[in-house]
């Protein structure tokens, strides 16, 4: 629970021709975390993928390219599960059928898009030519004349005159440029062209059309509309086709990726001429099962064995009870614990909702957040969202519990003399009397100083736990001496801080001056000496300054109260505003009051999810994890996977 699953290093050895079979067995067992073989030597080389790999990957590319046209919801539930046998039997025909269906249409789409592009260009040429008012057949097809049609920056007339007088120019303004058509004798063509280049001449290709410009534009418009309609139909057909075949496509994709992964297993193995060796880690609990099922299925030709070598770096397989599972997400977001480290997920499962509830603590808000969480968890089905929403739901339940402790309902006081029922029904009402006879365990606004002390105490407990984990982690990795010098000393420091704060409170309550000597202060002295001595020996005198960091960490837990008070403050303010509007001004006031009430609490609930969530996370990440958690582990990812769209027989 507090530790990752214990692992065993195993090697699987057998004759090479059994690799295919072994890959199937391992995939089904889904428990071997393979360590890829990397260092080739003269005897062992990295294996080569099985023969069928290239064929499979070709199919897979086709299927994926078809699938890339549709967006599949990751929580999609298939209507039909295909059996592997069925898929294998008609793999070739199915894939090529799907491909043909899609590709025909895709090709037509490409064709249409090309046509549309060409027509667009033609239109772009025709529109400026129209302003010249010369029919297209007159702009080309001369034997002894050269015709320049295009855009120029300025009128080139003066310059052309310098070369020849035998020319004709038509020019008109177009979009802050000029469109011109210049007719000259062929022998002056080159020279005129050079001049035109100085005027930034850009040629317009005169379209090959028999009709006039206007008619042609109309034709283009009509044709374009028709093509666009066809394009839409084709896209719709593809979409419909894929929707109809989605289950098949997903099944094929899954089947092919599994088969490809299997056939690429040799790439991760060391192979000699006749044998192969696979090395990896399996959970210790499944060792016997693993070994026997490999032996049985290969008639003893392939052997799996436990190996003990110095190259020991197992992956981290987090294992927590179902209730704590969603909190693994929060742990992993910070870092994956090393194999030797404590997995703090369980502690987070307890303290994250506790902190959240402590901060938000309102029956009404808790109920709204819970309803929201439950609703969203029916909408967002991906694994990450589900985990996150479960965390939110736990937090909401804790918020409701704390709501009863504080006696708060949407910022109103539920219990006591000022109960909300008294303002609604009057003090004489029996409901109001009943509620005003009850007392909340703690009213946050009145008990703030007491709660402040409580938050600090919670913080000291929380961080103390962190140091206990830290001691255990360091003992596992570096030994007892390091643990005493690096972690135990800080636990001493924490105790001394707790004692000093206690002394401070004792003086405050009994009305003595702050630094008056009392038992708690005196008791803290040996702890401080112990801490200082251990720290100087272990880490050096520079680290004494870290005492202040620890102090600030401790005080940091005051945010548990602060965030809560801010939230109550908002709620009370909105309620006050709403009530002020409600009574004096009739129906308008009632509507305005309702609007203020709803908008105000809506904003406050949004903040109430975000802020306590982040602050609670922060207290874990910054104050708690830093005491023991290094991270840097590798997640356990066994060879194999759970099938969703296909089934083995």
């Amino acid at each position: 629970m507090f530790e990752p699953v214990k692992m065993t290093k195993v090697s699987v050895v057998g004759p090479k021709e059994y690799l295919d079979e072994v890959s199937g067995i391992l995939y089904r067992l889904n428990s071997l975390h393979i360590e890829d073989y990397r260092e080739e030597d003269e005897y062992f080389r990295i294996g080569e993928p099985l023969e069928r790999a290239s064929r499979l990957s070709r199919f897979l590319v086709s299927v994926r390219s078809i699938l890339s046209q549709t967006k599949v919801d990751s929580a999609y539930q298939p209507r039909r599960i295909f059996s592997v046998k069925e898929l294998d039997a008609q793999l070739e025909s199915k894939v090529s059928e799907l491909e043909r269906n899609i590709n025909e249409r895709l090709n037509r789409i490409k064709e249409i898009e090309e046509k549309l592009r060409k027509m667009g260009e033609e239109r772009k040429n025709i529109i400026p030519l129209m302003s010249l008012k010369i029919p297209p057949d007159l702009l080309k097809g001369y034997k002894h004349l050269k015709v320049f049609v295009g855009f120029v920056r300025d009128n080139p007339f003066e310059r052309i005159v310098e070369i020849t007088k035998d020319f004709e120019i038509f020019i008109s303004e177009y979009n802050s440029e000029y469109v011109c058509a210049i007719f000259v004798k062929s022998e002056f063509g080159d020279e005129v062209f050079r001049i035109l280049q100085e005027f930034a001449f850009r040629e317009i290709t005169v379209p090959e059309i028999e009709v006039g410009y206007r008619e042609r534009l109309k034709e283009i418009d009509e044709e374009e509309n028709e093509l666009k309609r066809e394009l839409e139909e084709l896209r719709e057909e593809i979409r419909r086709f894929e929707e109809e075949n989605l289950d098949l496509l997903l099944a094929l994709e899954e089947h092919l990726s599994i088969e490809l992964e299997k056939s690429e297993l040799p790439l991760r193995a060391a192979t000699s001429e006749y044998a192969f060796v696979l090395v990896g880690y399996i959970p210790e609990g499944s060792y016997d099962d693993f070994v026997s099922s490999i032996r049985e299925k290969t008639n003893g030709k392939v052997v799996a064995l436990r190996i003990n070598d110095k190259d020991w770096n197992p992956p981290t397989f987090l294992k927590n009870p179902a209730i704590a599972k969603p909190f693994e997400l929060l742990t992993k977001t910070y870092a994956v614990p090393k194999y030797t480290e404590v997995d703090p997920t369980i502690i987070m499962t307890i303290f994250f909702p506790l902190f959240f509830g402590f901060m938000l603590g309102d029956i009404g808000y808790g109920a709204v957040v819970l309803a929201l969480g439950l609703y969203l968890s029916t909408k967002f089905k991906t694994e990450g969202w589900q985990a996150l929403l479960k965390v939110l739901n736990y937090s909401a339940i804790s918020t409701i519990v704390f709501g009863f402790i504080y006696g708060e309902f949407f910022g109103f006081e539920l219990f006591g003399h000022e109960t909300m029922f008294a303002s609604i029904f009057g003090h004489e009402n029996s409901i109001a009397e009943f509620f005003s006879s009850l007392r909340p365990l703690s009213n946050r606004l009145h008990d703030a100083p007491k709660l402040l002390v409580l938050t600090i105490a919670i913080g000291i407990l929380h961080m103390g736990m962190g140091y206990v984990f830290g001691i255990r982690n360091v003992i596992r990795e570096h030994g007892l001496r390091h643990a005493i010098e690096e972690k135990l000393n800080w636990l001493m420091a924490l105790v001394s801080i707790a004692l000093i704060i206690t002394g401070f409170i004792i003086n405050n309550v009994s009305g003595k001056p702050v630094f008056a000597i009392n038992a708690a202060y005196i008791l803290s002295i040996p702890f401080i000496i112990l801490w200082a001595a251990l720290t100087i020996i272990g880490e050096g005198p520079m680290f004494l300054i870290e005492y202040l960091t620890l102090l600030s960490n401790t005080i940091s837990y005051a945010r548990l109260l602060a965030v809560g008070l801010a939230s109550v403050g908002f709620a009370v303010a909105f309620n006050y505003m709403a009530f002020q509007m409600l009574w004096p001004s009739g129906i308008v006031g009632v509507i305005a009051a309702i609007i203020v009430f709803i908008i105000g609490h809506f904003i406050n609930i949004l903040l109430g999810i975000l802020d306590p969530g982040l602050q609670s996370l922060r207290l874990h990440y910054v104050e708690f994890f830093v005491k023991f958690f290094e991270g840097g582990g590798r997640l356990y990812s066994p060879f194999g996977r759970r099938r969703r769209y296909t089934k083995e027989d």
Partner: protein
Amino acid sequence: MPVEGMVAVGAGLAVGLAGIGAGLGEQGIGAAAVGAMAEDPEFFGRGLLMTVIPETIVIFGLVVSFLLMFM
């Protein structure tokens, strides 16, 4: 609990000024953390951790204002 006017002003200043300070501190860290996260989303946890470190200063301000108001 009678609270003198100036004490209340002092308590407000303690929280407000500490908040401004923490905000100034966090702006640079936050920007850098978002940049790092764009490179590698796995940085989120650590990015959040770095970003919120100056926040403790506000809590100091808050504790001071508490001591002023209640003790």
